[in-house]
């Protein structure tokens, strides 16, 4: 295998402009409709992010709003990314230029997929989130900063406390969010655990 040390990327902060997509319980079918998953690579996912929602909004969807065209921080409501486990959803948004998510809350599989891709998902309390959304909509050119080290989000709306599970935060800070290498580091402890489980013995 290659030299994995080369690919260890620590992520301690993200800066960029935001794009606000309002609404709670936005599911991964909406982020990437299933018909676009009939492919064996993720290459085209970016082109189809929120495709049906954008068509239905007839140009009024935030992703079609020119003011947000350079946004790299996705700002969303509660339970974002619920439903299907498809990694195609965060892939679609990553390939549309997003590097991080700020939301009220995230569905767990979605957040886990984002972690695997190096895209932090951080949460804000309801009042802070409402303020941030309003501020970004008023001035989309402002720079948002997510600091994972200090757990702070700064914007024109001020400095806010950001939430993120400790273990996940540490994965970003130490560069172990791409878990393959860390998991392989366990070496034969994997086989030892397997050997302690009768059902994992090779079939006779």
């Amino acid at each position, binding site marked *: *295998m*290659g030299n994995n040390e080369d690919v260890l990327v620590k992520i301690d902060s993200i800066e960029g402009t935001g794009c606000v997509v309002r*609404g*709670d*319980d936005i*599911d991964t*079918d*909406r982020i990437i*409709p*299933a*018909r676009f*998953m*009939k*492919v*064996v*690579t*993720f290459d085209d996912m970016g082109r189809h992010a929120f495709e*049906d*929602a954008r*068509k*239905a909004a007839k140009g009024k969807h935030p992703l079609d709003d020119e003011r947000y065209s350079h946004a790299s921080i996705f700002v969303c409501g509660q*339970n974002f990314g*619920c*439903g*299907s*486990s*498809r*990694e*195609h959803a*965060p892939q679609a948004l990553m390939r549309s230029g997003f590097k991080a998510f700020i939301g009220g*809350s995230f*569905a*767990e*599989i979605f957040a*886990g*997929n984002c972690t*695997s891709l190096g895209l932090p998902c951080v949460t804000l309390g309801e009042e802070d989130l409402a303020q941030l959304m309003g501020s970004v909509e008023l001035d989309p050119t402002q720079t948002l900063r997510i600091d994972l080290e200090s757990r702070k989000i700064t914007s024109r709306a001020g400095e806010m406390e950001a939430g993120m*599970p*400790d*273990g*996940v935060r*540490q*994965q970003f800070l*130490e560069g*172990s969010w*791409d*878990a*393959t290498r*860390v*998991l392989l580091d366990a070496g034969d*402890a*994997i086989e030892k*655990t*397997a050997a*302690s*489980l*009768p*059902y*994992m013995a*090779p079939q006779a």
Partner: protein
Amino acid sequence: MTDQPKSLFQKVWDAHRVRELPTGQTQLLIGTHLIHEVTSPQAFAMIRELDLPVRFPNRTFATVDHIIPTDDQSRPLKDDLAEAMMSELEQNCRDYDIQFFGPETGAQGIVHVIGPELGLTQPGMTIACGDSHTSTHGAFGAIAFGIGTSQVRDLLASQSMAIAPLKVRRIEVTGALQPGVYAKDVILTIIRKLGVNGGVGYAYEYAGPVVDAMSIEERMTVCNMSIEGGARCGYVNPDQKTVDYLRGRRYTPDDAGFAAKAEGWLAMASDPGCHYDDIVTIDGSVIEPSITWGIHPGHNLGVGEAIPTPNSVPDDERAGVEEALEYMDFAAGASIAGTPIDVAFIGSCTNGRISDLREAARVAKTGHVKEGVRALVVPGSMAVQQEAEAEGLDEIFRAAGFQWREPGCSMCLAMNPDKLQGREVCASSSNRNFKGRQGSPSGRTLLMSPAMVAAAAIAGEVVDVRKVV
């Protein structure tokens, strides 16, 4: 002796812990890795690029379900994209020596239907699959996670995943279900009460007299939709029914070792007096046949209830209710019963098993599909299909005007040719009523039990199945 009583979740977790990671997460061994054509090709591409082998090919099992057509499955598949995905999976399985349950094996089907029927799913296991409905396998007392493609890669490479421990919420369903009320109605009610994100951070342990009385297939329906309630997984403690279901299956032969195996399975059940982070009680005797009216599974109500008005719900739900009413084009305060339907779909990993088809057939016998309604019955697997045909269920459905199809995921997520058209309304035994879920960007889905779907197909509108049988 002085051993602390433990929940099943804790026992399984402890047995599969490879090590604690510096992040505080656990590296958890996954005993059974199930793969399918949609979420695995990129993972295989990644391990090829990293020049890594598949660590436990003998614990990795594949089938094809999402893209497979349900009319003509002859090769090459008519849809080039579907054919490419299926060929890719076949090639990956050959390259890495992974057992592939394709149509030619006679064991193909929806991954969450065939795992249990082959006996691959067993109590006390950890299971993962690149599909959110992997929680289904919890019906056997397994801890089963839906994962994304990067984690499929990690599992192929290391048979393990990094995950933080979950809290455990015991959900006790008390009393007894009324006739005409099914497992589907129970899980819809649980999701309605606890919310579509109420389970975040939790494993759900389903228990109580109603769950005890359920068959294994009914328990699968309940566990299947755990993810719709936001829970990472859901399970039922194994009992004698679990053992009886597994006896004599392909991977659980009824041999000299079976009794010892079964004893081990039963010992995995949560100990009396173990710690739960939360306990919720739901009265099963008042649950009605339930139906979704909106755009997520929590938007559901009893068949006798009226669709909510934006003013009747808490402030934080109002915008969602307004959006749902607009998308569905339903009137606030109207009765859900009597809503006309265009399509009826019976199938999916939630409700595509033999007991589901039997209940639907019992209703189908009472009439004929209403003119203008398109009704599909899609068995969950080839084994279900064969069993149903041996019992003559296919003839009952056909005689009543239903189409009898080949197995697959079909119109649950419409990655094959089975799709809604335009604004069609579909009575569906599947698991998600998200906008556009069934293949038309403006299509509308009403989730309900298979018996309710059959009743709606005949009436041409939503009806209370209790009035039919």
